[in-house]
């Protein structure tokens, strides 16, 4: 009884803050003075241009996802399975783009690849021309989005790889090479994790707006944005965001087709993990990874740091932005915590069949994740900006609600892996001994899902800390976060101010990583 109450409470909260606002917006888009009016949707379907940009978005997100999987899985194997030197440092360096707002990333790479950028100064005019040509349109968008989103695949794959029962790999290694073990044992075991990461990257790339606009590549999200921003037509803008539903259904269909029902992942904290010895390839691989790290990850940050100099300028910006720093950390931590526990309880409900319709749970968590922030933000305003619930709308609770609705998916999926790996007999034994469910939760379930909870929390924090749109639409006046402040000042602000804010945003995004590492006491996530 009490188990159900807790789970249904969280499910109810999710429906209230995640689904209802968007449903309210969708209803407005189909209702007119004369009743139900589907003409907007029919117009969208019959418009050739919409199909063209829809196809562009699809092509862009498929390519980005494929490349992110290739780079992400490869780097995950290198950094978690091999004896590559400095692999923890490389993991950190390769994750950096995830911590920076994508719009800033686009501008930074323009400083390198653009017509008068760094490449034009250190290479020949023809190479510079190729670089500048490459850094535009489809190729530029794919390049930047792959750099930005491949860390998601890398980190999730690493988390899954580190959870494989080492004895399985050791047994296989008795008769097979590492290459075969990876292809036949390790990768198939973590397949669900890679598919989940691919889903996230696909949906993020499909919804990405800032980078394609910067690269002048027409994509579907621009359509919805245009109707919000140029026409102030909320009905049409909402209608234009609904094709995401078809994308989600497609994603779920593919997932159902290729993902396995039950993962075999279980925690083996004390077991020694077998390591791939790179032998003679160690130095060339290390050199290649070092070059990639410096070229694609360190160089833009170095550029950002140089622009932020002198250090006094950086400190001055920091002292001016203390309130934004505080808001970013507080909202990020509370938002990540709220999304993590909501996702955990919904995930628990789905895993233990307390929430019967698993497919609906998956659909709606994906839906609130993929729907544009502008739609969910305006939905939250229309639902909560009234006399009765103004205490939510006039406080930071509204932002926490938005974060929870958007990022519940992350925790729901990740923590389900941990929940599924707990033998049901453990909970049953505790029940027979007379322990109530909250006690079982505290003593058995939470400790055994610690790593997944921590991973969800960290990923949610990073997403919350870099989110500008939802905050702009819902945060009470007089407050801001670093991502919003950064975008505010990108209009005519000095280069050094923008660079300093970029460095501070990056550092603040790393805030929970240190306590997380302390909590895990050096274990791999």
């Amino acid at each position, binding site marked *: 009884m*009490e188990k159900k*109450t*807790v789970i249904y*409470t969280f499910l109810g909260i999710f429906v209230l803050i995640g689904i209802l606002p968007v449903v309210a917006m969708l209803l407005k888009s189909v209702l007119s003075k004369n009743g139900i009016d589907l003409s907007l949707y029919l117009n969208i379907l019959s418009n050739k*241009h919409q199909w063209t940009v829809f196809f562009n978005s699809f092509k862009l997100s498929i390519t980005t996802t494929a490349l992110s999987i290739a780079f992400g899985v490869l780097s995950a194997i290198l950094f978690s399975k091999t004896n590559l030197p400095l692999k923890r440092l490389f993991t950190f360096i390769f994750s950096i783009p995830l911590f920076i707002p994508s*719009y800033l990333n686009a501008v930074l790479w323009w400083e390198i690849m653009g*017509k*008068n950028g760094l490449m034009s100064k250190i290479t020949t005019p023809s190479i510079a021309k190729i670089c500048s040509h490459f850094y535009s349109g489809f190729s530029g968008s794919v390049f930047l989005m792959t750099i930005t989103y491949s860390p998601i695949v890398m980190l999730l794959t690493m988390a899954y790889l580190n959870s494989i029962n080492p004895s399985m790999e050791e047994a296989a290694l008795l008769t097979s090479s590492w290459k075969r073990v990876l292809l036949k044992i390790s990768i198939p075991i973590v397949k669900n994790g890679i598919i989940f990461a691919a889903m996230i990257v696909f949906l993020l790339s499909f919804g990405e707006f*800032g980078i394609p*606009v*910067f690269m*002048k590549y027409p994509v579907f999200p621009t359509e919805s*944005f*245009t109707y*919000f*921003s*140029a*026409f*102030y037509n*909320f009905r049409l803008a909402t209608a234009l965001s609904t094709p995401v539903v078809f994308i989600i259904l497609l994603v779920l269909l593919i997932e159902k087709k290729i993902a396995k029902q039950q993962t075999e992942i279980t925690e083996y904290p004390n077991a020694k993990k077998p390591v791939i010895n790179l032998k003679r390839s160690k130095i060339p691989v290390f050199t290649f990874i070092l070059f990639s790290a410096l070229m694609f990850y360190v160089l833009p940050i170095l550029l950002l740091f140089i622009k932020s100099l002198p250090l006094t300028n950086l400190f001055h910006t920091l002292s001016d932005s203390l309130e934004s720093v505080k808001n970013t950390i507080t909202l990020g931590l509370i938002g990540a915590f709220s999304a993590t526990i909501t996702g955990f309880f919904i995930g628990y409900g789905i895993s233990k069949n307390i929430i019967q319709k698993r497919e609906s749970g998956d659909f709606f968590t994906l839906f609130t994740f993929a729907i544009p922030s*502008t739609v969910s933000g*305006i939905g939250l*305003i*229309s639902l909560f*900006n*009234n*006399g009765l619930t*103004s*205490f*939510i*709308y*006039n*406080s*930071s*609770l509204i932002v926490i609600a938005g974060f929870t609705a958007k990022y519940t998916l992350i925790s729901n999926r990740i923590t389900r892996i941990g929940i599924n790996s707990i033998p049901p007999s453990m909970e049953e034994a505790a029940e027979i001994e007379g322990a109530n469910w*909250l006690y079982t939760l505290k003593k058995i379930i939470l400790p055994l899902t610690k790593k997944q909870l921590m991973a969800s929390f960290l990923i949610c924090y990073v997403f919350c800390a870099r989110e*500008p*749109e939802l905050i*702009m*639409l819902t*945060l*009470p*006046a*007089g407050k*801001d976060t670093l991502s*919003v402040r950064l*975008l*505010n*000042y*990108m*209009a*005519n*602000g*000095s280069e050094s*101010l923008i660079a300093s804010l970029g460095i501070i945003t990056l550092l603040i995004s790393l805030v929970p990583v240190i306590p997380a590492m302390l909590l895990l006491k050096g274990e791999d996530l």
Partner: protein
Amino acid sequence: MKKFTVILAISLIIPFLLNSCSKRNREKTVVVYVSEDRVFSEPVLKEFEKETGIKVKAIYDTEENKSTGVMNRLIAEKNNPQADVYWANEPIRAEVLKQKGISQPYLSKNARTIPDKFKDKDGYWTGFSARARVFIVNKNSKEKPESILDYINPKWKGKCVIANPLFGTTTTEIAALFTLWGKEKTMDFLEKMKENKVLISTSNGESADLVAQGDYTFSLVDSDDAVNRIKQGKGVEIVYPDQKEGEIGTLILPNAVILIKGAPHKKEGEKLIDFLLSPETEQMLAKEDCAQIPLHKGVNPPSQLKEISKIKTMNIDYFEIAKKMIEIQPVLKKWIEN
């Protein structure tokens, strides 16, 4: 279970209590939504705080969303407004809000000396500190453009750029042409622009950079974009379009301030509007990179720009432009798509 219920109840009650406490301080606060760049508007609002002791709670817009985020918020909040004042960076948005019933009239005493053509006759918005739509021209070019019609002059084929007319001040410019020339002539102009291979950039800032880098010879941009590049030492200069006899003149876009209908802190909002419309504020906004042209007589313009009285300005009605803008958006969207 009881514990869980108690925790849940407390977590809902605390924010409510905190909010109730903050309501008591409302009389000392003004909430303003700002589309003018934060780097320019924030110092002005801080000065207001210093002068009046009224706390300013602001929400600033971002370049990424084409400075329309706060407009969307104002529209979404219509039934229960949270903002007192909206500081728009051009008057068309103020007109749109008037037409949507989101603003209320306020005739500030400081608006008396602002020319009538830069304010709404009923007081729904008042203009101050303007930008001009000027040509930024690369100095390496021997010839200079003189009229907006140079966009369709074959001698400039492939050499000029304009920001996406679906957004911002370029939309206003095209809407102004629709009101002055009519639909047929303007559509012909737009089609000829395509034939003349005019590049469509993402923003005025990008257009200014493309000219400053020497990729293109000229572009219509906002005067602050041009002044900014001159201050950066780029080889560009400013040309005011259509200044000759019989030509249409230069489009002037003042900032506009409006009082929100149902503003929770109306008095403080009015004080802020008075402050923004004062000559002192115009002087602040004329300085540094902001480079806005004052509308009050006797306030010095930025050194790179002319006084408002010395510019031949476009003879337009902002109300008509706002109306026209909504009408032409689908046409412009189609033009961009094809």
